[in-house]
């Protein structure tokens, strides 16, 4: 268990370091950085490399935004395997909805609960 925690720390941290390099060296905005990482996650899954990384690092690979691209691709590929080309379109959100739906729901709840009026910085 402890080794799982350490690998997720190291792998998750390293993915974030890649993001920091994109931001600092290539001068990308946060939105550009995240989009780049999502695209690379989906490409890695195309080569079948991201799932082994999840097996290895657990949350270290599922928590960074790269896993979002991975699971979109994974859903599309799983569906394509069953139903052919049309599955590429239909399977996309089969696996990943939890991140998006959680963000939408907690976004609305957060807007209800919290006020944007704090002055302590």
């Amino acid at each position, binding site marked *: 268990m*402890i*080794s799982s925690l*350490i*690998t997720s720390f*190291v792998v998750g941290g390293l993915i974030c370091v890649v993001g920091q390099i994109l931001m600092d060296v290539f001068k990308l905005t946060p939105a550009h950085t995240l989009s780049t990482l999502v695209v690379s996650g989906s490409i890695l899954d195309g080569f079948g490399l991201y*799932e*082994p*990384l999840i*097996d*290895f690092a657990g949350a270290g690979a599922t928590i960074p935004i790269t896993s979002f691209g991975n*699971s979109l691709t*994974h859903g599309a590929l*799983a569906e394509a395997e069953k139903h052919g080309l049309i599955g590429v379109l239909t399977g996309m959100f089969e*696996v990943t909805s939890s991140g998006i739906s959680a963000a939408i729901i907690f976004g609305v709840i957060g807007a209800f609960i919290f006020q944007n009026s704090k002055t302590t910085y």
Partner: protein
Amino acid sequence: MKNAIYILLLCFLTACSNEVNEAIYPENDSSEIKQVLNNYDSVKGYSSVTDKNDVLVAIDIRRMSRFNKEKIEKKISKKLEEKFPDKEVLVTSDLKIRWEVEKIIEQSMQEDEMTKSIKKIKSLSKEET
């Protein structure tokens, strides 16, 4: 300072994988499973339960071999299927399933109860992400 952190991390990574845990239940037909599993260096521990229809093996794969987790699972399950042609074999390294299997062993369940648990475990493992 920073190098020290890395060295510490590496130590942790390697040091934590020494305890070996082998448990087979019920013990009477253990030899064959043992034979198969002991051939794999990447498997550092396992617990297994068997009833009249199923063979359930939960393996603990070494950290660095986890990249090939799926391949290892498939290989072992193929080998075991050869040994138990009349039973359904499930080999997995999933933590949840290992915990469930260990629970069966700890409580030394009776045949009926065990069959029920095994059914539950199998349906768990079939769930897609």
